[in-house]
């Protein structure tokens, strides 16, 4: 199977196919539908690599990211999403958000 992420981040490859998602809507849906233990696995794996991942992406121009670096950036975006569940709420969904939705309909790419 071909690698999705830059070689320096091959240790995060197990999370790539699930979490390298282009839009906020996909990342949100993935978080909300993922049980907490799996969110914790992703969080624990990426946390020690976060700063390196941000630095690696930041060494490139935002408008000219190679595909593998863009996927690494998407993983960082997903990490931010997962961090809310892990660090802030202790559950996939925001506490007391009931049946509310808020759909992101416009965002920059990547």
């Amino acid at each position, binding site marked *: 199977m071909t690698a999705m992420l830059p070689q320096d981040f091959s240790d995060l490859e197990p999370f790539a196919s699930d979490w390298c998602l282009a839009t906020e809507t996909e990342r949100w849906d993935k978080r909300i539908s993922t049980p907490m233990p799996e969110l914790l696995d992703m969080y624990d794996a990426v946390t020690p690599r976060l700063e390196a991942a941000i630095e690696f992406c930041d060494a490139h121009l935002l408008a000219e990211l190679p595909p593998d670096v863009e996927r690494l950036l998407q993983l960082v975006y997903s990490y931010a999403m997962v961090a809310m569940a892990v660090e802030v709420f202790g559950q996939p969904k*925001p506490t007391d958000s009931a049946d509310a939705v808020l759909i992101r309909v416009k965002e920059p790419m990547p």
Partner: protein
Amino acid sequence: MGKWPKPAEGSWTEHYPELGTGRISFEDSVSPEFYALEREAIFKRAWLNVGRIEDVPRTGSYFTKEIHIANASVIVVRGRDDEIRAFHNVCRHRGNKLVWTDLPSEETSGVCRQFTCKYHGWRYDLEGKLTFVQQQSEFFDLDVDNIGLAPVHCEIWNGFIFINLDPEPTQTLRDFLGPMIMALDDYPFAKLTERYDFMADNNSNWKLFADAFQEYYHVPSLHPQQVPVAVRNPEGGFECAHFQIDGPHRLVSTAGVRRWTLPAEYMYPIERATRSGLVGPWETPDIGPLPMAGLNPGNVDPWGITNYQIFPNLEILIYGGWYLLYRYWPTSPSSHKFEATLAYHPARTVRERIEHEVSGVVFKEFALQDAGMLGGTQAALESGVLDAFPLSDQEILVRHFHKVVGDWVAQYDGALVGARA
């Protein structure tokens, strides 16, 4: 005794004596009859913000806006003369909705050279003039020069496009906005073009969501997670530094410390790692001189954010170097469409883009807590069990909002009664 000084009268509310201090009714948020009056008195009379000039960047750029409560659909388009105009989205021939894409009820946008009606192919140019009629010779007395699209009053303030559905608005946009909002004339909104737009259908009256964003009294109770649990103080309260009212509009300022000066435990790890979070990016690029007299009219030090509620349904929250914008579009007495935009200086680096992403993620988490509660508020108010509710000084803007809505409705109703008499 609070942390921030109150006006000489002893409270913000008593500083504006016309507000009173008694309990208020939320009948205006459940009554179908009142909703019908709001349609005529407010949404067909007030200036309504429907977008920004960046939404129509070049000749032929257009978008449509559905204003459900007013039974109106409006086209906003940039013409060949660079002028931005608004028209009713109605073909002059048989009244068909002129511009739509997948569904007539859905808003759309794009770039075009002209508007062509799907029904019989009548065409209009970007300035609204009728330019083509199929089999024109078969019509009777058709004066094509005087049968263009019906115009809607459209004015621009600092890049914000406002429309007014009144055939003869009683005020210009600038007169309507007044000095408190005009003090933001020089705020560089046009530099903050990296946008994150959100949309939601919410099962509450439009005013109830606006209420949730015009007081901070609810923050410790509804959003305890905004502060990490180790430093959380459930009885800490929240006190705003400055309130101000100008005509139908209001503002509130709160203090803010530079995030990096706080002890680490006051931030979540994701905030420390990305230098962004609850109050947005910790640092934002220099966007030039800011109109501080307008941004911080209460001279709050250290100033954090000022939150402007522009009557009737627009809210702009400015954090110095970036802003949020909310609009509440009524769709029934017990529902509305909520729009939110987060706007930043375009990211110059990947790191800045991550800061914006984290800011947008955190915003959504807590906005969902506000939104999630409102269905319950609506249902409980509709039970009709209670009809008078106490408001604290921290909720002065809720009091003012419902009073102004009531005043506009009463004025309209009174004018009708006067006309009938």
